[in-house]
Every structure is written in C-alpha cells, then in structure tokens.
C-alpha cells in the first residue's frame, strides 16, 4: 500500500476538476503506483466533487486501472491468437517458474505481478509481453528469463 498524500491534489491542479479530468488523473496515479487504493479513489472523488461510487465504477471498467495491489513491475502476457500460435504458453510457464507465482498473482516482495491480456499489437513479432509499458517481442523462454533477471537486479 502507498500513501497518496498530495498527489491527487497536484494531479487535479494539472488536469482540472471536471468530469473529463477523471481518467487522466486515475491514469497518472496508476502510472506512478500501478494500482488504485480505496483511499486514492475517495480522494479523487472529493477533489472532483463526484461520488466515490462513480470513481470506482469508472475504474472497474478498465483493466489497466487496477484496484488490486500490484507489484512494481506488472507483466502482461498477450494471450490472444497469434501469440498463442507462436508459443505464449512456454513463455507463461517460464515466467511462473521464475517468479514462483501463477497468472493473476503478485510476488510476496511486491516486485512483480503476472497477468494475461488481450492483443497488444505486436502480433508479427509474437509472442509478446508488456512489462509496465515496455513491449518485449519475439520471445523465447531463454529471452524471457534474461529479461526478468535484468528486472530482478533493478
């Protein structure tokens, strides 16, 4: 868990306090902390003068506006057809073995979360994953394990 502190206020100053400011504010909180806490959402509702239920309702519609605790690095593995044809299950196997978690889980040290996602637009270089916003493509189990080792050292 993180403390939002002044963040919501700062973001509201930056993006405004209108209904259309809601998404950019939530997105920037997630960019910083990878997920939304209840505290953050209540704070946003207060700043924009809308109900907390509305904030929660909006957030829950979008898979990237996560309301569950997420690690520092969120690994999204494309599970869609082209990546599947090109061996995404080996990639998932490697990731699960290395991180010792299953799809949908977060490591106990809160470094990594592993989730599946739909097509991320790198189908010609399948299989592909995103780590936070960074795409990694044409993966093999060996390539993935080098990449993850790098992140583990960060």
């Amino acid at each position, binding site marked *: 868990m993180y403390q939002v502190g002044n963040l919501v206020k700062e973001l509201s100053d930056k993006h405004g306090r209108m209904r259309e400011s809601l998404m950019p504010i939530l997105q920037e909180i997630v960019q910083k902390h990878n997920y939304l806490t209840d505290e953050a959402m209540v704070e946003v509702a207060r700043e924009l003068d809308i109900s907390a239920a509305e904030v929660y309702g909006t957030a829950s519609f*979008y898979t990237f506006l996560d309301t569950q605790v997420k690690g520092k690095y969120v690994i999204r593995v494309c599970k869609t*057809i082209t990546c599947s044809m090109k061996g995404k299950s080996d990639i998932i196997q490697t990731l699960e073995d290395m991180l010792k978690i299953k799809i949908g889980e977060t490591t106990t040290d809160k470094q990594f979360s592993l989730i599946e996602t739909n097509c991320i637009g790198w189908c010609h270089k399948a299989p592909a994953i995103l780590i936070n916003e*960074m795409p990694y493509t044409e993966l093999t189990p060996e390539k993935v394990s080098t990449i993850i080792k790098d992140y583990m050292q960060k």
Partner: protein
Amino acid sequence: MAVRRIELMLCTGTGCVAGGAFRISEALEKEIQKQGLEKEISVIITGCNGFCGHGPLMLVQPDGIFYGFLTPEDIPFLVQEHFLKGRPVKKLMFSPPEKKEPVPLLSEIPFFKKQLLIVLRNRGIIDPEKIDEYIARDGFTALEKVLTSMTPDDVINEITRSGLRGRGGAGFPTGTKWKICRAEQKMPKYIICNCDEGDPGAFMDRSVFESDPLSAMEGMIIGGYAIGASHGYIYARSEYPLAIKRMNLSISSAKDYGLMGKNILGTDFSFDLEIRQGSGAFVCGEETSLILSIEGRGPEPIQRPPFPAQSGIWGCPTVINNVETWATIPVIINRGADWFSKIGTETSKGTKIFSLVGKINNAGLIEVPMGITLKEIVYDIGGGIPDNKKFKAVQTGGPSGGCIPYSMIDIPIDFESLIEAGSMMGSGGMIVMDEDTCMVDVAKFFIQFTNDESCGKCTTCRDGSEALHKVLTDITNGDGKEVDLEFLEEVGNAIKDASACGLGTTLPNPVLSTLKYFRDEYEAHIKERRCPALVCKNLIKYYILPEKCTGCKLCLKNCPPGAIKGELKHIHIIDQSKCTKCGTCLDVCPPKVSAIIKVSGKEMENITGIEEPYPVKRKGGKNET
C-alpha cells in the same frame, strides 16, 4: 554534399539490425575504402521497408537493384564485382521459390511490385521525430492548399468524390460523414482520431503513429477546417507508449511551426489537438464508447442514432475517423479525387493496410490496392506458408470477422466481397492459418476474446458469448453433442439481431463462418472425438513408436512433467496419465529417428500397451517389436 555515383540504402530496422545490419555497414565502408571508391559510393542508413524476412538487405540506387540475406563475408566480393567491375551479383539477389532466375530489381520483386504505398508513403524514409523531414516529403502542402484555395465545401466534395470509406471497420463513406456534421447548426464541433486499435492481429494504427505521426494529424486539421471544428482529440490505447510519445512531439513541433494552434499559416483558422489515453478496454474503440470515455463517463456503448456526427462529444457534432482514414486525407487533397478513385474497385477505392501475421513467411504490414486477391496477398507478398505446410484459411476482421478458406483464395479483397464471404474488412488484421490450426479452437479463441471484452450491458452479448464459449469448450474437450452445432447457429443468429453495438452484433461471425466452411472439423470433434489438426489437448495423445525409438533418452531428459520412462538403448514409453501434451518430446526427438507421433480419434485406442521399457534390438536397421 558531393553527389555520389552510387548510393547504398541499407536497412537498419529492428529485424535487419538483429540480423547484423551494422556489421554489414562496417564491412561495406571498409571495402569501399580499400577499393578507393569512397568518392563514388555512399552508404545510407534507412528505416524498415517491411521485407524483414530477407534481411539484412540493401537497395542499390539509382539502379534499383536489391540484395538480401547479406553477410559480412559477402561484402568484399559484392563491392568488387558490382561497383568496380559493373557486374551485379546474382547469388545475392532475390530468387523466387519456384523460378530459377533471380529478380534483380526491387520494383520487380512481387513483395514490392504488388504493394502501393499511400498511407505508408513515408515509412522507413523519414525520421518520425523530425517535422522537417515530413515537410520535405510534401508534408503540410495539402493543408496549405486547403487553407489558401479551397472552401470547406470544396474539401468535403473532394473527399466524397474520392470514394474514401472509413478504415476503422464499418467502411462508412468519409465525405458523407463530414457533410452530415458540417450541416449541423450546433457549435462548437469536434474532430476525433480513433487510435484505440485492439483487433487481434492488427497494428497498423500504431505503425502509422510511430513512423509518420504528422500525416494523420495533417488529415485531422484539414477535417477540422472542413466541418468547422477548432479542437480535436486523439484517443490512443495506453499500450502504445512510443506512438503516444511521437504524437506529443509532433503536436509541439507543429505548433512551433505555426501549423497547429492559433491562426494556422497566418489564416483565421485555428486548430488544437489533445491526446487522451485508453486504459485497456477494447470496447472503447467503438465510437460512442470512446466519446463517453473521453468525457470521463461510464463507457458502455449507446444506441445510434443520433450518430456522433450529429451529437458526439459533450453532445456536440463530432467527426470520428480511424487513424488510417485521417492519414489518407492529405494525399487525396494533393493528388486529387480522380487519381484516388482510379485505384481499387467499384465500391472500395484506394489502398488498405493489412497486417499479415500467423503462419506466413513475410509477416508484417503491407499496403495494397483494394481488389487485390487473397492469393496475391498470401503468396506473392506474404511469401506463402512456412515449412511447406498447407494454407488452410485466413481470418480477417478480428473478432467481428470470419475465416476465409483456401477454396476461396481468389476472392478480391474489398468491403463487399469480404462481407459476402461471411467475414469483414475490420481494421485489416489478417491471421494466416496452416494445416496445424484447429478451426474450432480458433472460433473458441475469438469468442473468449469478445466474452472478455463485452461491456456486459446487453444480455445477448454478455450471456450469449458465454454460452457459445461453453459449447465450444465442450466440443474441443471432446464432450460435444450433435445438437451443439444447431445451438451454435441459433444462439449466434440471436446475438446478431439483438445487441446494442458492433461488438455484440458481429461476435458470432468467427463461429458462423468456421461452421460454414469447416463443419467437418466440428463434426470430427463431436462424432469421432478427433481433432483433425491435432491441436485439442483432450483429443490427442503422444506416442513413441517402438520400431523407431533408439533409446537415446533425449525426450526423457526434456519432458517437463517427467512422464517418459526409459533407459539408454531401451524403448521409451510415455505414461499417458502424467503427460501434459506439451509436445516437447516431439520437437526434441531427432528428425532422423522421428519416433514420436501425435494421434487423435480412433488411433488413440490402437496404441499398443507396452508397460515397461525394454532393450532396443536392431535387425535390418529396425527395432523388433
């Protein structure tokens, strides 16, 4: 800079760099110096031209000769032969698989010859982060022409006459949409660029914004002038950070140059652009949903009419078009509607970008005139199917589309023909499938996708996709019943008729089209518990042929769950209760031995029950069983 006699355009796109393009450039520089040709030849680094399957590659200008699969070792010979002695090197040219004679000229290679680059005109040619390079390639001349010599109605007429139809999926005539919006009295009006691309297999919008962001933006400014809007939004999916970075850069450099913002090019027309990001909801690509998302409201799609052109963002008239549609606009303005409408077919004008992915040799983006046949795309441009496998089908139109079987390979690709075939254009994803693809599994994939992405507002879409998915899962698990096929058709048609947005109304297409063209595969799963493509795990078994196994232990060592029993020089056996059907053993068994087979249906029962490994005895080169 002195004009050199020869220019070597060496590709340094991602694919070619991975293949060693920089080592080629070093080798070239070295040999050119050695031969004293540095005053005559220069090496020019370029971006990707899409022919990545043949990299590292280069083009010799002005001759137009293409060399591919280059290695540093080839370079001295190449430089001496071609540039010193004037004898182009045949063995480094492109040779088509079926013909013996190589094709020297890039422009004659089918991959390039059959393409026509309008939207991708600047791909690999300009630095997308430098506005000057866009301007040097006629960038903003269309905007200048519009602002100085055309009325808004002239612009709309030109676009209407060109026959341009939206590239985002539905193919609505762009000129007509603009005209409806212009006719609305309410002010202000807005422009939106839909870059929420999410169709499986499609990534053209990402590529346009990554390789030539200003082309789409110039189109949007022209659109703003035509309908009377001074503000626009680009809605981009957040999965595309590089594209978003380049949008931001382009906006600020266009403003610096007076090409965006207040009083563009000194006229009284002003236009500003703002970027909004999605957050991982596919349905937000639907126009009414996208608009609600920008407004910060719950983005469940709403019934049209009214269309956004009448009542869009904040209830104001709004033109929303796809990235590719916007990027086509400047070219139509510059070269004229007559020129554009000569390209393509009667009802589908111009070019379309497709992304070729899946089981295809030249995977990547291509741009072709409408009306080209599927066969030309898959074989001439795509280079056919890898590993000499059989071409089975192409899935077009993403989750809204369908599968087109091999038997229809001569179909011309345009909006109408694809719909007639039970598929659709969609955003242009083409997923190529070979004989190893199970069509029931493919249908299940797409239904899983739409079920994930349904916003849940309509029962038909939400529960209908769930029901379809359950039945497809049963069939692929071997639990299918004969009535299931009728059920799929009935539910499919019901969903089509009663959902609020395009996601629901088109979601049954992958099921209905595979049922239409590959019914025998569905039946094999149900009646014989057999997966003809040997994909569905519940319906296949791996088996080691005793007469072929040499007892090398390779499969045993590599089997992840340890399901293989055996010792050195003993016939190995798979414990079916432990096997997870991962296929590793089949991959590692040496090709010369090929002792492991995959079977389905009746053959699964015929597997002879050897219980324990026993020694390999060779007689006449074969094992005794």
